[in-house]
């Protein structure tokens, strides 16, 4: 565990609140799924919140974020409003993707959130391309890419690692190693399960981080993002974490034992951090209740917003297949 020395009360509360915001929002999503308000796929991030919360704090608004279908938390902490996220999950046009993307395809241009992605590994080259664009256009920005351990078996992962390292691109790979890709455990899917080691073989700085420790995540990401930003080339962080819920909403979880899940729940990132704040006398009962109330209020507002939302009109169905005519772009001669 990283020490809490130097942690301010305010900072501690922000981290705890952000983790609670994700947790409470997703717990509500699971209920809404049972009520068929949310349909299709729904992949919950519960148990992994410390990763998105810690990592996002190390990014600036100029940086880009690419994520997966398990991206509700990333979008929320990146600054997409809970209202827009919830409306998107309902399929309402007030959602961040107009209701066309759903849970797996949250997009938000203002916060440079380049999507959830339902193709495993599909986002990784995109992030490398964003980093290439930054390099070519002389911008000092970081492109952060979140993906799972399972994605590290895809060709696109390896091709991206090589390209990023070869061209020294400002990309930050954030691998969320939750030990499973759907129902397949990492030992059954990866010849080398230490994913940071594999990244290092492409000649980039890479290390693993306790993904249940929000302070460790923040510190590691800060260090890596600063190095990337200052021209240090791609960096790779392997966050060791665990998903507490099923892979998606239909998963009998035959592939892991209840004991294993229970053992990981002992390391619930929210409870761990809450306890540390209390031990360091940085959190009182009242403050804790206040944070919980903030998180629940936000969820309730989001649900109300989604409920009140409207369906995109049928006349728009064929809009945006191709871009609508825009003014001619000036190209320097």
């Amino acid at each position: 565990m990283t020490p809490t020395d130097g942690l301010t009360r305010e900072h501690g509360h922000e981290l705890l609140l952000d983790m609670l915001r994700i947790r409470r929002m997703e717990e509500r999503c699971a209920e809404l799924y049972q009520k068929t308000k949310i349909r299709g796929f729904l992949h919950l991030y519960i148990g992994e919140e410390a990763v998105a919360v810690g990592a996002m704090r190390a990014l600036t608004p100029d940086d880009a974020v690419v994520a997966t279908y398990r991206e509700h938390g990333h979008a929320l902490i990146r600054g997409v409003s809970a209202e827009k996220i919830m409306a998107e999950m309902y399929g309402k046009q007030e959602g961040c993707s107009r209701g066309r993307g759903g849970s797996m395809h949250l997009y938000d241009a203002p916060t440079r959130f380049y999507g959830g992605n339902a193709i495993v590994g599909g986002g990784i080259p995109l992030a490398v391309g964003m980093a290439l664009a930054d390099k070519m256009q002389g911008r000092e920005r970081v492109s952060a890419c979140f993906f799972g351990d399972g994605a590290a078996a895809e060709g696109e992962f390896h091709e991206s690692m090589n390209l990023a390292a070869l061209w020294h691109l400002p990309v930050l790979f954030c691998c969320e190693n939750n030990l499973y890709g759907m129902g397949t455990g990492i030992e059954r899917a990866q010849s080398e399960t230490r994913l940071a080691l594999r990244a290092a073989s492409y000649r980039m700085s890479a290390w693993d981080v306790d993904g249940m420790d929000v302070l460790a995540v923040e510190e590691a990401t800060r260090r890596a993002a600063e190095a990337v930003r200052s021209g240090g080339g791609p960096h790779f962080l392997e966050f060791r974490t665990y998903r507490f819920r099923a892979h998606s909403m239909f998963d009998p979880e035959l592939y892991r034992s209840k004991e294993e899940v229970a053992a990981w729940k002992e390391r619930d990132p929210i409870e761990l951090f809450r306890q540390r704040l209390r031990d360091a006398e940085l959190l009182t009962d009242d403050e804790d209740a206040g944070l919980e109330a903030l998180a629940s209020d936000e969820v309730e507002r989001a649900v109300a917003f989604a409920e009140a939302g409207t369906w995109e009109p049928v006349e728009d169905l064929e809009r945006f297949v191709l871009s609508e005519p825009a003014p001619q772009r000036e190209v320097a001669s």
Partner: protein
Amino acid sequence: MSTPSRTVEPRAAAGVRTITFAQAVNEALAEEMRRDPAVFILGEDVAEAGTPFKVLSGLVDEFGPERVRDTPISEAGFAGLAVGAAMTGMRPVVDLMFGDFLTLVMDQLVNQAAKTHYMSGGKLKVPMVLRTTLGATRRSAAQHSQSLHAWVSHVPGLKVALPATPYDAKGLMKAAIRDDNPVVIVEDKLSFQDKGPVPEGEIVIPLGQADVKREGTDITFIATSSMVVVALRAAETLAAQGLSAEVVDPRSMVPLDTATLVESAKKTGRVVVIDEGHQSYGVSAELAAVVADGAFYHLDAPVKRLGAMDVPVPFSPVLEDLTVPTPEQLTALAREMCGARS
């Protein structure tokens, strides 16, 4: 879309059980694996985790993890491995959970599997099967709802089958596994729990044999996969209105039973092709061209197509349902073509 039972009415016969599409596929795989030790399955979560759509349940228990092989998430890799293994004595069945992931295996399928036999002057064979899915209206959004069977149908060297009923699913799968060519079988995700009659014992349906799913005299619906049930429902409605629609299911795109399609077109004089792929440049265009060509002098109306709209599949449930042809649309189109008053 309101969905009454999708089950296609069993044609009564002795010794016939009613089983689900998923069970039918499962039986076909189990029987072929018992029959031929070279047959094995590989794909993501096919064994330990309980298998995508529960189609493969129990197979790992009978055949073990060597022959029902969980792979990492490496579609291009394991599809290519299947090609190699097929070239050297095995008969792999690749399980590709979603048809949308065909994009990831296209190189191995198109540049390797499809061409090896031809390029080697007939010296090498690639007896493999790739099972995958098609179909929207599951609220799965644009990257998990596509019907991309036209992509593979376009490539010489691949066979492509589209079973629409449990019976066809079993018989086509068994034929595909025994075929010495690479065969892509595309199954409708929504049909896995549909029930239908399947006789006990061996069924092998040769690829390239269409099936008349319902006889009629006024109009022919050439329907594939998920659209067979749509066509049958439309035919039902039309029957009540005094119009007799014939439903012909080609069952495989390659090889294609042009004779049966053309024969039906000649008989009724009117044809609608209905398929869940995007309407433009899809298999429906090919099927329409085949009947227009073969039955031109017998047609009373231009051949029409009904396909999915040319849009990525939207998540919004109200929009999604509009992208896929419905029995109501088909009924209306058929009435118009038959000059019936609406």
